């Protein structure tokens, strides 16, 4: 009703999901508005990765709903989702090690080949490090370069929303800074970002809004700045 309210581009509502008999998520909701960068933080095993996997159709949602640009995409298969404008970078094993860098990026555009050259150009200009090594196998890359390639692969279809699972995990502080700088740039070019981080400080400083997840439930949410200043968050995750 109020036209000042931003439009949600990705909306997950009351998601219930889990492995086997056990529910890990007990009704989690997150929203990403157009052009927004949103962080999900929370302790080990909170269900952050599980949430991303469920949104991306890798795990069945047993309850709740996922909407992308208003369209119901709950439990849709990944090869459909990439066509609808959603991309996902897993937490680990997020490149094809025996494929070259160029081939890795081509696989990112597997479902849609048009405009391949421009998209490749865009990725290479975002990550100049990859440009000269495009013929090399991804298995030879350093951790930071792998993460760049993983981001590049996910960008190959120019998604509306990018799901990132711990993009800064096990990287050097300098590399973390660079990766976040690139993610910010991608975001400023119009791609909505939903990222999961253990590194709450880094994530909240980079993002617009944040959610705190614990035991498969929403704990807190709000402006990233206010979460950074929040005492509870500070005590639980920022070690202050």
């Amino acid at each position, binding site marked *: 009703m109020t036209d000042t309210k931003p439009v949600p581009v990705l909306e997950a509502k009351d998601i219930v999901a889990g492995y086997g008999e056990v529910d890990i998520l007990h009704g989690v909701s997150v929203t990403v508005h157009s052009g927004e960068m949103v962080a999900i933080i929370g302790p080990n095993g909170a269900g952050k990765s599980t949430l991303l996997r469920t949104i*991306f159709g*890798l795990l069945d949602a047993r309850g709740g709903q996922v909407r992308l640009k208003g369209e119901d995409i709950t439990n849709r298969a*990944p*090869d459909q*989702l*990439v*066509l609808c404008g959603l991309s*996902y970078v*897993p937490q680990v*094993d*997020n*490149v*094809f*090690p*025996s*494929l070259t860098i160029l*081939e*890795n990026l*081509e*696989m*990112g555009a*597997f*479902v849609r*080949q048009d405009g391949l050259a421009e998209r490749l150009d865009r990725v290479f200009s975002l990550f100049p490090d990859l440009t000269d090594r495009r013929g090399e196998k991804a*298995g030879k890359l350093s951790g930071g370069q792998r993460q760049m390639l993983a981001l590049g*692969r996910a960008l190959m*279809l120019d998604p509306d929303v990018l799901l990132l699972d711990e993009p800064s995990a096990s990287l050097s502080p300098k590399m973390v800074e660079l990766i976040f700088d690139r993610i910010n740039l991608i975001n400023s070019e119009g791609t909505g970002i939903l990222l999961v981080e253990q590194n709450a400080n880094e994530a909240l400083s980079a993002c617009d809004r944040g959610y705190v997840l614990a035991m498969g439930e929403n704990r807190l949410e709000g402006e990233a700045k206010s979460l950074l200043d929040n005492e509870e968050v500070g005590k639980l995750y920022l070690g202050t």
Partner: protein
Amino acid sequence: MSTYADRLRGNLRVFNEFVAGPGLWILITLLFTYAALFETQLFVIGLIVGSVLALGSIGLTLIYGVLRFGNFAHGDLMMMGAYVTFFLLNGTLLGQRRDTNIGVGLNDLPAGTERLGDLTFGYSFLIAVALSAVVLAVVCIGLDRLVYRPLRRRGSAIVTFAIASLGIAFSVRALLLIIWGPDPRTYVSGIHKAQHYPFDVVLKTDQVFIMVVAIVMAGLVYLLLFRTKLGKAMRAYSDNPDLALVSGINTDRVIFWTWVIGGSLMAIAGSLLALQANLKPELGFQLLLPLFAGAILGGLGKPQGALIGALVVGVAQEVSVAYISAGYKPAVAFLILILILLIRPRGLFGDAN
């Protein structure tokens, strides 16, 4: 004291790394050079045998790479391909002495059996092999739908897949036995004249044909895997199935084409083999050892490795005949298998870990 032990241990590690890396390649180069110089005839025959094995090993390694299990039915399915070719040529079914013949076959095509140059067969053979490739591709896809896909959906362990393939191997062999009987079969009867080549090499033109076809097929597989979108997707899936799914690669399609390629190669390899050896149902099982030896030597999942591995196995087997009884050929393949598993389990082209 401890420094001495450390140094010794260090030297030992350097030695092991040398044996496992460049040492293995040097060994293979030595084998090939020696065989080529001193046993030229056997060496060339070895290359021919090896190139047929290579088509089998490449299929085996592709299936392993994508589906992650050793297909124990590979040899028997190769034989099925060979028998299908036989049937298409002659229309013959059921045991030798009382053959039931459906009365038509590709050999009845006008001038179908007219020999192509020095080869023992006519164009009917080429058509039969092509059709057999289609049949085997369909059989493989059928087996996948019937057996392997349900196992995948259930998330079965790798061992279950391997055992299931062993069951298919036995069934296929029994089926061949029932349909075509135990007696040896040949595509073309009569004497095959051999040609003399430089360095005292004597070859039938069929054998040259076999090698050329095998090399061309291996080249086509290479082009497919490294130059086409589908091939790259197959390699991607083999690298990391989860990420392939995440990238939007249709995994059912990748598996489908893997069976199409694997099945076609089985039929071609089996038919080429039967061109110069007697066709018998139990041949498939005997093939299994050299096929696996070639694929493992090259590095499971690596088609270029399977090509080289199978050539090494072929040459080693044939050259051994100069020194030990031909009955030991399977033992040679077995020896290679054991050696590679001891020295470098990931094979020549396998990735570390």
